[in-house]
């Protein structure tokens, strides 16, 4: 009957709408923690920073290359621990199209410069003075490393210190 059909339709629509609202509430609740992080596979937020030698680095200029983006601080021991490994792997991979960009979380030039010379770092090191890049990448806590592939997509986010073997694995992953 026509009336019956209409009734069934109405009920189905209302139930579907309510069900969708419930599912949405559950979904947002479960993604709440990860919503505060960069989504894997999403485009890496672009930024411009100047390194300690005065060269500007714009992330989008590295399209076509893999980028290992590392956030660190001089007082942070695990950050310091992984630096020499990154330095070694930087030399091994820089000619294979994998870059390392090390972003300090906003310390003084003095602190960063002495750290760089103490560890003999040759990859670009830059200071995020206004902490805008950290906000864009939701950096917390240190150290955190983002793997960005040649298309400019974030394919992994690693928190905590890296071993040399791990760094090499990751470099392999983003090698174009």
């Amino acid at each position, binding site marked *: *009957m026509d*009336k*019956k059909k209409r*009734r*069934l339709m109405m*009920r*189905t629509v*209302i*139930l579907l709408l*309510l069900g969708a*609202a*419930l599912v*949405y*509430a*559950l979904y*947002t*609740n*479960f993604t*709440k923690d990860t*919503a505060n992080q960069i989504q894997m596979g999403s485009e890496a*937020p*672009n*930024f*411009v*920073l100047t390194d300690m030698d005065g060269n500007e680095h*714009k992330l989008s200029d590295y399209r076509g290359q893999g980028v290992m983006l590392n956030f660190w*601080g*001089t*007082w942070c021991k695990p950050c310091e621990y992984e630096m020499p490994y990154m330095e070694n792997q930087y030399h091994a991979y820089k000619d294979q199209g994998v870059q390392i960009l090390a972003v300090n979380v906003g*310390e*003084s*030039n*003095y*602190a960063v*410069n*002495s750290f760089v010379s103490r560890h003999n770092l040759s990859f670009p090191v*830059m200071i*995020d003075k*206004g*902490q*805008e*890049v950290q*906000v*864009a990448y939701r950096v917390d806590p240190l150290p955190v490393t983002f793997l960005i592939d040649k298309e400019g997509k974030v394919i992994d986010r690693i928190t905590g210190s890296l071993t040399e073997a791990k760094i090499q694995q990751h470099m392999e992953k983003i090698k174009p």
Partner: protein
Amino acid sequence: MDELKCECGHVNPTGTILCEACGKAVGNRQNENKLLDMRYEGSARRSQTYNKSIIDKIWNFFSSVKVGVSLIVIALVASSIGTIFPQETYIPSTIPASEYYEQEYGAFGKLYYLLGFHNLYSSWWYLVIIGMLGMSILIASIDRFFPLYRSLKNQKVVRHDSFMKRQRIFGITNVSNQEVNLEQITERLKKQRYRIREENGNILAEKGRFSRWGPYVNHIGLIIFLIGGLLRSVPGMYVDKVVWLREGEMKEIPGTNGEYYLKNNAFIFEVYDKGNKEDEAFVKAIEKTGTAIAKNYQSNVTLYKQEGEVLPGEKPQLQKVKDFEIKVNEPLKHDHYALYQVDYKLNEFSKMSFYLMDKKTEEKFGTLTIDLNDPKPSYQLKKGYSVELMSYFPDFEFKENGEPTTKTRIPNNPAFIFKMVTPDKPEGEVSFVAIRENIEPAGENVYKMAFAGVETRNATALTVRKDLTLGILFAGGIIFMIGVVQGAYWNHRRIWVKRKGEEIWIAGHTNKNWHGLKRDIALVVQTTPLFEPTDQLNEEKFSNKGEEISG
């Protein structure tokens, strides 16, 4: 037949118990009690009628008052469990939750943690309960409102005898040898603000039908409130962040996606002062407590807006919006954002000054001032004298192996390793300087760095808040209250007067406050030959079925 045709000719929907028009029992569901069950006017609640498909079954489940009440009880119990111990958000961040609950509350605390009650209000099952409650409210309302509305709209003036007889207020007067002035009765009813419908000497007087919609208005308010709560998780609707700013510092305001920047010009902390004339009234209180009593926490800030497209890390193009003094309860409000004073830190070291001094003669060869947040590698003093900063530890401590190191980047306890270059010591002397400490690692020096002074600055913490759902929550709350008032302060009263041969029948019905209805009727029939109808419920004690609950 899908529909029920009543004797009076009115066609009712399937499932109708009492004819919408005349009130005669149709169908065979009405029980044989003396009084009618007037709930929802005996209308065809759809859920009670069809029960075939899975959709109907789900619908009927949520439409049930029993289910609704059970959900409310479950939600109440669950919500109260969440208040036994503090939720995870409120425990100190220094201890992980897995240890905190056991440590603080023992075995029961551990169980509480293991069952996930430390995050109860965002657990999936709690959300499901609240969601189901919302569905129950909405579906039960739809299922009752429309049939009730239809019934009240279709009611006729003349009701069936059986309907009249089985009303709680009912009476018959034989008027064979007396004149009854119906005009007078109508007049009296009108005076009591009844709306009158008349048909062939029969009367239907009705008032306060509006009160019957109260519960549904109330439910609409609740639903809006729930929607408001749901919207909080939609991006852009709700922001709750904290920003720390030292004096002189400028930062992007978190949660604004780089749209706004804030500069802290000064943080001011004032206490009540005995010596101050203004505070004379408080002298006793100040003496009694013996400690400083805070009078004002204030951040003098400047708000800037980012103009144009700028990448993170690029120099922002800022346009000044306004200067403002943020105090407790006096937030800076702009563009749906509000910045509240929430915390502060006083006297953080910002600059330190030293003299280069000959230890013996105490002759000074100039001063140098080190910006603790941006030190320079070397400082030139007068000709031939300079100081190199070999190492700097903003938050100094000794490692286990005795080497100096820094705990954080904040200058809480600054320490320096200086190399002092002088004309008589051109290769330089090394000195380790920390607060109240002066170590000469390479043997006795001729010169030293003497402490000359320190500058401090304050830091302020502000809460960044944006809540676009507030208006919706308010609207929901107000509609909720309107519904409550509507249903609670008005009664739906009806009086039927039916002429039947030489008799006049009077029946009355109300959804609450029967005393009021009886008083209304008494006022109408006084001084007329009509008897005051009786309350049939008082005459005979019914088991319970006869009493009806308002719809």
